[in-house]
């Protein structure tokens, strides 16, 4: 009875150490990979409106509409397209699972989330940049947030669009 228990104990301890070592191995092999990937972005249509922000606080804010293309080759990630400018907004995202086609070839995409500014900062703004970033979820280990090496500028017009709908 005693030897069975002590054998079970050492077996358990051994499997725990093996699993810990494997997990650490996962972490080591994924932690230091260079993940930057060239990304081609292109924006084709830009429109600006000023409406009540129906997604949250009901103040009039700038609402931007853009149509964009993405070309990138990524692997097992979650991608989000974000704007950089002191303020950041995720416009679109996608979950890419291991086994899915890692090449992203999207054309004429509309934004998935509303591009509301908190205020009126989009009007006439030439400093808005579109970038692609992605979050890698490994089997175990570090969760890096990587930004692709390409970016494109999105210059917003000086006037609001009143008549056209997108």
């Amino acid at each position, binding site marked *: 009875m005693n030897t069975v228990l002590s054998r079970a104990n050492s077996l358990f301890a051994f499997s725990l150490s093996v699993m810990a070592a494997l997990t650490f191995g996962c972490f080591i092999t994924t932690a230091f990979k260079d993940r930057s990937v060239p990304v081609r972005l292109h924006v084709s249509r830009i429109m600006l409106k000023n409406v009540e922000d129906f997604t949250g606080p009901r103040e009039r804010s700038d609402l931007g509409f853009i149509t964009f293309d993405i070309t990138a080759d990524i692997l097992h990630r979650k991608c989000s397209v974000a704007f950089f400018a002191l*303020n950041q907004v995720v416009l679109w995202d996608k979950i890419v699972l291991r086994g899915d086609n890692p090449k992203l070839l999207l054309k004429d995409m509309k934004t998935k989330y509303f591009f509301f500014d908190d205020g009126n900062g989009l009007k006439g703004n030439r400093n808005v940049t579109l970038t692609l970033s992605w979050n890698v979820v490994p089997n175990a280990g570090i969760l890096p947030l990587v930004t692709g090496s390409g970016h494109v500028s999105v210059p917003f017009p000086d006037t609001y669009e009143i008549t056209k709908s997108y």
Partner: protein
Amino acid sequence: NNSGSDFFSLFLQLYYQVLNFGMIVSSALMIWKGLMVITGSESPIVVVLRCIYLSVSPPSGSMEPAFHRGDLLFLTNRVEDPIRVGEIVVFRIEGREIPIVHRVLKIHEKQNGHIKFLTKGDNNAVDDRGLYKQGQHWLEKKDVVGRARGFVPYIGIVTILMNDYPKFKYAVLFLLGLFVLVHRE
């Protein structure tokens, strides 16, 4: 006289076991506190307890397929690290005890440096405004427990089992006690 020395050696063994146990507990505590200092976060390791799912579909994890119940997340909350969209944050809503693990969707920063942001679970169709306090539209830095920087799957299942089934916890403690007694040879 014989029984006296027997009793004394038994007492020594017990004393040794208690010291051993105390050392294990204090090393664990030291590691925990050390992690708190290094990562700057008040709870550097968080077990994903519950994922809140906002939709009419049947309930499932709100951060799947990335994280599931029982995954262990390693967090940091260093002040020099600005919050960016796409990061996974663990935040607490005022009045609620359990922190939520979701992704940052929007960030707005004012000229005075004040930052507010919006979150959304990967698997949710809508953002978290329905989860925030009544009338609250944004989260602020003070609501953040930490940013997820690393993760190990499944490990936290034991903690969840012990929380949900106290009988399991007592069974584990009993077995541990049994091992300690048996191993004394």
